[in-house]
């Protein structure tokens, strides 16, 4: 008893220190993620205070801007509908297949999530140019990839892997016993609509919400097809007026839509059952779906195969000889080095921020809803607005070294992607049996031992997976980097994006291939880590 009395204050003391440390890191997270937006809000208030009331009109689009806003919404809704339907059909198809070819295709599609949409745009343009030549040779009418139709096709194909991934996550998290119970009662075809889809729906809806956000806030694909979208208007407003507050007010209607969509979709994710626990060996499950259903799902899988294989083939063919590729790499050496360095730093710095905040998401108290909002709302902020906010925050004489250096793209990446790492760590935390952590707390001699020996190893799949996601997203980040990159320092994506406007070339294809190969390697790593994580937690 005496020993326990001596021991307990030690634990409480170390826990207090740990909580203080975590609290400090959470404040840093909030500053990094919300700082750029909050300064814009303050700027607007300040400007209104000095009589710029006419600026308020920017928040209520009329005439051309209203039409542009409506067109952008229509575009995002169409992309979301198309990509979600294809991803859903393909997800169900791949889920019910065991062949190695299908598994490879599914893996390839999933790692394609990391390939930026403008790389897809480039490859599809090249593919359609090639088709046009072939069609002309046979005197057939050419199919042009241009205008809104072209942008819609490319954006949809680029986002199909996201819908596929969320569908697979949705069906994989269904309790296998629920499926067995359904199979005993009704034919497999009926179970798809009555049991499988309703149970997978929360994550499918969340995926659709995410696709909608990405489509609405991305301007790269639309602008490559000479279309203006509302997200580009924000960037244009900042470029012409150099007034951050005006850009923020212009972005308000877009923010209203994206934040609303995010709140609805994150609610479904919070409710989704995330317990892929199966103590029995894997069943010999293979659903006997009718031929019409298999054909329908097969169409979704075929579209997914096209979405992945066409860009891959075009890049491999256009990159030219290995010598030409080597020349491209040498010419872009500094951009490649800079991109990889900042991506790595973003991934590494995100980890402590995510670990400190993830626990708040899984706690079952009143604050956890607030934390869900705090962590997910940044995802709804257009990249260019984050960049504009960062410029306004750091472009001051006192912070000259920050503003003029490599730290700006890192801060941009952290503001955009630290929330994703937090969600990945929180998902892992939710999968851990809480009794394992309770047991560790009972036997802990000090807080650091508890963290290093128990909590971190259990969290590792989420940490590694989340950091991998942040690294991959940072490799392809363009919207915010374009605004904040200091003179003389350019990322790989900036170089590609600038080249793209001068027409596709070998060097663009070569650079895209570098991003693609990095994405494939990194994406494979993330998938392996997540799968290992599942196994580790199951064993636990």
């Amino acid at each position, binding site marked *: 008893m005496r020993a326990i009395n001596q021991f307990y204050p030690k634990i409480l003391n170390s826990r207090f220190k740990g909580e203080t440390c975590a609290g400090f890191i959470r404040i840093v997270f909030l500053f990094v993620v919300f700082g750029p937006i909050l300064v814009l809000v303050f700027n607007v208030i300040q400007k209104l205070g000095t009589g710029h009331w006419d600026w308020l009109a920017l928040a209520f689009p009329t005439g051309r801007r209203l039409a542009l806003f409506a067109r952008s919404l229509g575009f995002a809704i169409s992309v979301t509908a198309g990509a979600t339907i294809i991803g859903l059909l393909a997800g169900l198809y791949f889920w019910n297949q065991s062949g190695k070819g299908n598994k490879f295709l599914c893996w390839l599609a999933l790692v394609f999530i990391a390939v930026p949409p403008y790389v897809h745009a480039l490859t599809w343009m090249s593919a359609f140019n090639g088709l046009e030549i072939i069609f002309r040779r046979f005197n057939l009418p050419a199919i042009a990839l241009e205008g809104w139709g072209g942008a819609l096709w490319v954006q949809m194909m680029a986002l199909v892997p996201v819908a596929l991934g969320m569908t697979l996550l949705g069906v994989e998290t269904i309790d296998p*016993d*629920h499926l*067995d*119970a359904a199979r005993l*009662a*009704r*034919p497999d075809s009926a179970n798809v609509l009555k*049991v499988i889809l309703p149970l997978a729906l929360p994550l499918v809806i969340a995926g659709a919400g995410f696709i909608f956000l990405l489509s609405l806030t991305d301007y790269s694909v639309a602008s490559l097809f000479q279309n203006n979208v509302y997200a580009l208007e924000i960037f244009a407003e900042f470029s012409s007026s150099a007034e951050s507050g005006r850009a923020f007010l212009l972005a308000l209607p877009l923010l209203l839509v994206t934040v609303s969509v995010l709140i609805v979709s994150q609610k479904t994710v919070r409710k989704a059952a995330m317990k892929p626990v199966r103590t*029995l060996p894997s069943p010999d499950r293979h659903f006997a779906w009718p031929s019409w259903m298999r054909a329908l799902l097969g169409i979704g899988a075929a579209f997914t195969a096209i979405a992945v294989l066409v860009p891959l083939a075009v890049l491999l063919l256009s990159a030219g000889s290995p010598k030409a590729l080597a020349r491209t790499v040498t010419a872009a050496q500094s951009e490649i080095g800079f991109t990889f360095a900042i991506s790595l730093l973003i991934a590494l710095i995100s980890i402590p921020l995510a670990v400190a905040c993830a626990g708040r998401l899984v706690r079952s108290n009143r604050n956890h809803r607030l934390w869900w909002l705090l962590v997910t709302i940044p995802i709804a902020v257009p990249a260019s607005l984050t960049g504009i906010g960062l410029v306004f925050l750091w472009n001051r004489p006192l912070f000259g070294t920050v503003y003029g250096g490599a730290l700006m793209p890192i801060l941009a990446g952290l503001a955009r992607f630290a929330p994703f790492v937090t969600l990945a760590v929180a998902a892992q935390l939710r999968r851990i049996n809480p009794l394992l952590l309770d047991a560790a707390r009972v036997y802990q001699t000090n807080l650091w031992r508890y963290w290093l020996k128990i909590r971190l190893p259990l969290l590792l799949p989420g940490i590694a997976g989340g950091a991998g996601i942040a690294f991959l997203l940072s490799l392809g980040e363009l919207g915010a980097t374009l605004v904040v990159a200091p003179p003389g320092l350019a990322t790989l994506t900036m170089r590609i994006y600038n080249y793209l406007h001068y027409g596709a070339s070998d060097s663009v294809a070569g650079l895209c291939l570098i991003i693609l190969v990095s994405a494939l390697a990194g994406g494979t790593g993330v998938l392996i880590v997540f799968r290992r994580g599942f196994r580790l937690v199951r064993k636990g």
Partner: protein
Amino acid sequence: MIEVKNLTKAYAGKTVLERLDLELGNSEAAVILGPSGSGKTTLLRLLAGLDVPDSGEIRMDGELVSRPGYVLEPHKRQIGFVFQTSNLWPHMTVRRNISFGLGSIRQAEVRGRLNEVLKEASIEDLAERYPDEISGGEASRTAIARALAPNPKYLFLDEPLIHLDPELKLKIMAYILESWKRTRASMIYVTHDRDEATEIPGYTFYLRSGRLERMDSAP
């Protein structure tokens, strides 16, 4: 009638059931006893058509329903299955959980049968509630009612009382026996609890090293 011959099943190289034989007549009951991991659940899953045997065959009323490479779909076997956990579909109310297996009959008949089953299980008041709004005992009753609703010819119960407290166990066991007597389905009851096994009036088998050993017989 259920006939199982030479049934073998292995998972990841480990043989769980080895050349197992079993015969159970119409309306008869059998209890299968065995420690955790002895293959009891695997046997029920094979009987239900949820897994494919590596060798051997299963016949129901003389019809071949399972052999390597062929499995008659589970919903065509006229089976009622009660899992270890109540396993109710979380997005459906109690009423919809129970009526799900009655899909092939007319709507008026579904309503009649549903009311009958709800009454027998004493869960009429819970019909519109969702699984997360009912207690463990109520969920067990619902799961058994769901298994019995389509009037199955075969009733398989996989340790249905394992997560219940002693008082509730007695009540649910009484409901199971009463339901079995009423339906006269052939019943296989799997458990690791000898006291529970003595409650079931039928054959008792012990599953050891992947094979069944008969312990005693029914009158």
